């Protein structure tokens, strides 16, 4: 097993004006499950492919364990890959698919047999060992692809969108399978996805990338509760965080956030930070997650300084919860997530209280989170 260290990594494709990956620094600990996540074209797959040795590193250093591997061929990096196109070898049965790499490396027959059966047992595919790929379902094929990687007992597993060819239900099931597998194998996994739910549910640490740059690398809850900037705040969470343009002002000794139909008092601790950083009197972006807008009477009663009135444009009833699309607040549609029991109707008005312990303020120019505090992760 080994950690992976990326130091000041750049990737520039021939003829490109801008690097695809810019000054990427990341230390992945031994046995850690790290998920690289970001929108299409953010550089996450390129980063993984550089680790795999499938793309040349333009600048910077890449270490697997203590070994500098910039110029080491993929096959000598002691990694195993599971990619989106998990093509199995069509003319071989499951056993042969899993044994192929070991056979090629001249492992003893008994060792091959032991490894294949152990991996098959872990993945619950022992009963499929004699079958050909075309006789398998999508989920079974994906398990075989994982098995093919597991039998090699690599230092690091690299997975690039391995679940994206599966249907939604199977994807959810395989998510937890891979997480369990990680705990069982106790090995380093670097996993790439564009799906924030996959990232949040699987990663011990998630690395959010945009335009070739790491935006934040932290555990899922940290990223969710303490986003470093506007991009991270908007990318993680569904429905995503509400962003309202407005002004930080001072009224009757209180620091307040003001926008159209919004005038909420900012609690003293955070007000102090805003004063110290010189945000009073400045335009900012106010961020609040849909679940941090409340309609419960007890919350409204306890939060007289953060109450707003809005019109319900659309109400989506999802059974256990409702998603309200609210108009009249600031310059945008604000989304609130409330419980599924409270009766609400489209076109009516509603009173809500903002949880003033959970809001975020972003600098309008830099888009950095004003209250962000770097954790030790």
């Amino acid at each position, binding site marked *: 097993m080994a950690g992976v260290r990326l130091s000041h990594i750049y990737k520039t494709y021939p003829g490109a004006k801008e690097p695809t990956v810019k000054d990427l620094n990341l230390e992945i600990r031994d046995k850690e499950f790290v998920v690289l996540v970001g929108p299409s074209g953010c550089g996450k797959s390129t980063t993984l492919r550089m680790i795999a040795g*499938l*793309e040349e590193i333009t600048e910077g250093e890449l270490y697997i364990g203590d070994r500098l591997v910039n110029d080491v061929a993929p096959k000598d990096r002691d990694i195993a*890959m599971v990619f989106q*196109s998990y*093509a199995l*070898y*069509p003319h071989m049965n499951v056993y042969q698919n899993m044994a*192929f790499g070991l056979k090629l490396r001249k492992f003893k027959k008994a060792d091959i047999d032991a490894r294949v059966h152990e991996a098959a047992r872990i993945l619950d595919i022992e009963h499929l060992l004699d079958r*050909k790929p075309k006789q398998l379902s999508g989920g079974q094929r994906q398990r075989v692809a994982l098995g093919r990687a597991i039998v090699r007992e690599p230092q690091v597993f690299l997975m690039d969108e391995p679940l994206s060819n599966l249907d939604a239900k199977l994807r959810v099931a395989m998510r937890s399978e891979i997480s369990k597998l990680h705990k069982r194998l106790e090995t380093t996994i670097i996993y790439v996805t564009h799906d924030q739910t996959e990232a949040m549910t699987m990663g011990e640490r998630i690395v959010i990338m945009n335009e070739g740059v790491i935006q934040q690398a932290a555990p899922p809850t940290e990223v969710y509760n303490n986003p470093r900037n506007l991009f991270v705040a908007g990318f993680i969470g569904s429905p995503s965080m509400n962003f309202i343009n407005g002004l930080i002002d001072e009224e009757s000794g209180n620091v307040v956030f003001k926008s159209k139909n919004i005038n909420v008092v900012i609690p003293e601790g955070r007000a102090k930070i805003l004063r110290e950083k010189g945000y009073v009197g400045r335009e900012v972006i106010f961020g609040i997650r849909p679940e941090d807008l409340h309609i419960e009477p007890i919350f409204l009663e306890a939060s007289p300084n953060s109450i707003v009135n809005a019109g319900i444009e659309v109400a989506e009833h999802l059974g256990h919860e409702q998603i309200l699309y609210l108009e009249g607040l600031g310059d945008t549609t604000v989304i609130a997530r409330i419980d599924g029991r409270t009766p609400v109707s489209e076109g009516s008005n509603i009173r809500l209280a903002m949880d003033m312990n959970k809001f975020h303020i972003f600098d309008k120019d830099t888009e950095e989170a004003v209250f962000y505090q770097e954790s030790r992760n």
Partner: protein
Amino acid sequence: MEGREGAATGGTPVDWDRLRRQLEQILQAEFRLKQVGKADWTRWGEERDLPAMASREREGELLFPIRIAGDRVEVLAASPPLMTETERRLVEVMLETVRKSLPKRKNGGDTLKAELREWIESQIAAGEPEDRDPPAHLTAYPVLYQERVPFLIVGGHAHEEPFAGDELQKLIGSFFDSEVLLVPLDEREWLVLAGRSLLDPDDEAGAEESVEERLSSLCEGLHSVLLNEGEGEFHVTVHYPIVPAQSLPMTVIRMREAVAVGRSSRINQYVHLPWELYLDQLLSPLSRADKIRFIEQVFKRKEPMLDDETILTLETFFELNCNVSETAKRLYIHRNTLLYRLDKFRQESGLDVRNFNQAVHVKIALQLYKVTKRH
């Protein structure tokens, strides 16, 4: 020149396929050209105390040796073996005579690869790849008269060191587990000639598979094995089975075209199947200006901006024959959400992709849009 090492020293060209057909007609038995392992060949001979070049009976076939090439023996296999002892002896004598007339060479395997490469490149360079028989010295290789499945693999990343041919040969040989010829066309481009038996169905389910489906899964498997075994990411294509002596240079041209077109029109794809690229091949010679003009005419605006979601939705819709339910299922969205997206696209572009003619325009414009946006 590398290709001249061990090159032909006289001899008469032999059309092995013609010879095979003649034997079939005369003896009313089915003959085919194939290879067997040299070790097996020797063992079978030792079991019956037979000379090295005497015929052997094996699993219902009568095997007549043609030549020993490295660790393989090229044979003419007759099945069912209904010949009399006299006929069998006559075939042996005839083949011995033919063998003696063949050009002499030093190192069968490597020389064949070099000579094949030279033949392919010279035919392509001369611009006359069709309807030309191989040069006389290549007719000494019966392997070129057996039906083969050709693959082309092209190195896709920028490692400075060229790929080690021996390792690649070993990997691909193990992968196909059958006689396979790997011909380096240059440092990053390899021609693979695999046995036709790869396409034989191995069970009932396999019998229902089309040739394209079988070739496609083999091609994806080949790409996958190169990636998994750490050789790197290669672009891979395949062609329908051919008899190399008849059409190899032309087949190489077709496969090179498939890779070139696939690489330019389908970003991040490494398996390029010719039968999926007909439209791409038709559109690729258009100039950039013509492509942009067509896009603008279809979308009725300069520089249309299509977001990833719209592109994915439309592509999936076309891939699934404009079937709304299937598309919604594939995209994991509600049918109404898909209809909403298609309506939104119609409102913004004036194009209704549920109308056949407009769908054709959008399909082509989308294909061109992706190419022009990347260059």
